């Protein structure tokens, strides 16, 4: 029997500690982990909870992130509730196994503390690792602060383990900016959290000796396609389940989550659409722009996979100019996030102007002033009726202005 952990109604937690408390309250059976900055405290704290008797679970230290996710798959297939955490290079080393987890439909929760990918070596936050996982078949939630890292981790178990979903879920938070910044967090009581997440009900568990099963079978051209199609259908069909879980969470806590969040969007002409901590910066900038008479708004992606095309289109339907912010070097393309938003808006009635900004790489600060400048640029596009700059620009970069690809419209 686990020792009771004393919680205050209001705690001062950083994003890592908040996520680890969610793992404790969710009664995670097994955490298989390999440490990497800045996500290490999540699994380190879970190990401490096990060591100090606050949870009846297993902490397994392995030799690499590849082994960590492999161990998670084994424990999940065996029939346990499983979670771990990683960042950056560790995430990249895990990449091969991420596809195995989703293909086997194992509802593992992976806390990803976003960090830049080397080279150059860098421990600070950007979204290069997150985008690397975008096609891996995992549901991807984005937390913008410590409270959300905690809330979304609890929701992640409930979504992924739903028998209509049965998919692994990543909960992303920004390295250091969220993971190491202590903020007020209002946790649920253990009883409420456990009741919300619910008991783990296994499917096809390998420890059911009356029904032995094979995981990881080989298929070739005769079966592979059908299995991947079924998996894709499952992640697309998870959208209403995610909405249900968010609605239930709001009823319990008063905290509302949507797959697409909108701020000041009722009459917005110019919009920044973003992810992670950038959202709060852009919201402050939008308020400042409104004081100057610019109708600025912010749209944020809470759920990057499955990508909410319809909700993005709905949120941006009356916008005139949209700036999409990619916190990753897209390596010869416009940017993963830009491409999704542009695809969603191409099929809209108004087809607003969509430009992209590559920004904040390796933890480069994204300032309120820069967000205001981007809003002003969007206003210039809206006034002119066409894109007055390069479609892809670099924001916050030293040296000569860097941009690519010009519009053929206007």
């Amino acid at each position, binding site marked *: 029997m686990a020792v009771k952990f004393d919680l205050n109604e209001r705690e001062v937690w950083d994003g890592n500690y908040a996520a680890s408390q969610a793992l404790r309250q969710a009664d995670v059976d097994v955490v298989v982990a390999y440490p990497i900055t800045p996500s290490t405290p999540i699994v380190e704290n879970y190990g401490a909870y096990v060591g100090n008797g606050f949870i009846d679970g297993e902490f397994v230290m392995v030799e690499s992130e590849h082994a960590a996710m492999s161990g998670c798959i084994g424990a999940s297939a065996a029939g346990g509730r499983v979670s771990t955490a990683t960042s950056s290079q560790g995430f990249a080393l895990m990449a091969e196994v991420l596809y195995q987890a989703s293909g086997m439909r194992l509802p593992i929760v992976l806390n990803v503390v976003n960090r830049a990918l080397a080279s150059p070596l860098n421990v600070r936050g950007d979204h290069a690792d997150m985008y690397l996982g975008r096609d891996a078949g995992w549901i991807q939630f984005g937390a913008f602060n410590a409270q959300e890292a905690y809330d979304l981790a609890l929701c992640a178990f409930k979504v992924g383990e739903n028998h209509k979903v049965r998919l692994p879920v990543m909960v992303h938070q920004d390295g250091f900016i969220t993971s190491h910044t202590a903020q007020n967090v209002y946790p649920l009581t253990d009883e409420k959290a456990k009741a919300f997440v619910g008991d783990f009900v296994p499917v096809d568990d390998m420890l059911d000796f009356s029904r032995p*099963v094979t995981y990881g079978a080989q298929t070739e051209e005769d079966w592979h396609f059908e*299995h991947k199609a079924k998996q894709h259908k499952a992640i697309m069909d998870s959208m209403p389940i995610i909405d249900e879980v968010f609605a239930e969470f709001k009823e319990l806590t008063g905290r509302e989550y949507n797959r697409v969040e909108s701020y000041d969007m009722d009459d917005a002409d110019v919009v920044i659409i973003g992810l992670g901590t950038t959202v709060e910066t852009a919201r402050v900038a939008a308020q400042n722009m409104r004081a100057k008479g610019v109708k600025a708004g912010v749209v944020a992606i809470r759920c990057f996979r499955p990508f909410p095309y319809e909700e993005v289109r709905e949120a941006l339907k009356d916008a005139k100019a949209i700036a999409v912010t990619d916190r990753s070097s897209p390596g010869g393309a416009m940017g993963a996030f830009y491409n999704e938003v542009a695809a969603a808006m191409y099929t809209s009635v108004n087809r607003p102007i969509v430009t992209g900004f590559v920004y904040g790489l390796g933890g480069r600060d994204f300032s309120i002033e820069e967000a205001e400048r981007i809003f002003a640029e969007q206003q210039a596009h809206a006034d002119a009726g066409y894109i007055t700059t390069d479609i892809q620009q670099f924001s916050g970069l030293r040296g000569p202005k860097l941009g690519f690809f010009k519009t053929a419209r206007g």
Partner: protein
Amino acid sequence: MSVESQDLNLCANDNRGQLQLGAGAGLVGWDEVTQGIVLTSFDGDASGIAHKKAEDRSYSEFNSYTASVASWRVNKPVFNRDICIDCQNCWVWCPDSSILSRDKQMLGIDYDHCKGCEVCVEVCPTNPKSLLMFNEHADLDESLAAWPEKKKKAKKSKEA
């Protein structure tokens, strides 16, 4: 030479090796495939099945036991009952569980699952060996007739 002991159906139940991989039978659409490519090994309740002999188990059509997975074998091991001492070395070492043995008595080869790796021949301790590799299409009687004689140990020459 006792040919009877080489009966290929020896110790096999009705569904061993009856399915051919890639034969195209039972192809269903994406909506009917199993979730997560999880495959059941047995039909019905399998409690205590570890204590049953292979021929008494209800292997499902997803289990490789019911499939013939030896089509790429080029050379096959042939078993010679008259020389075998039932030491079980081949049974222990076979990587495909293709040595048929009951009550510590070697019975023959499961040719639906044997890949022709030759490990059983390598580990056989008798003189001559009780298992030897022959061409996949070699006739059993001819193979047994061609079995080598016992080798005499060469006398060790004394060295200074």
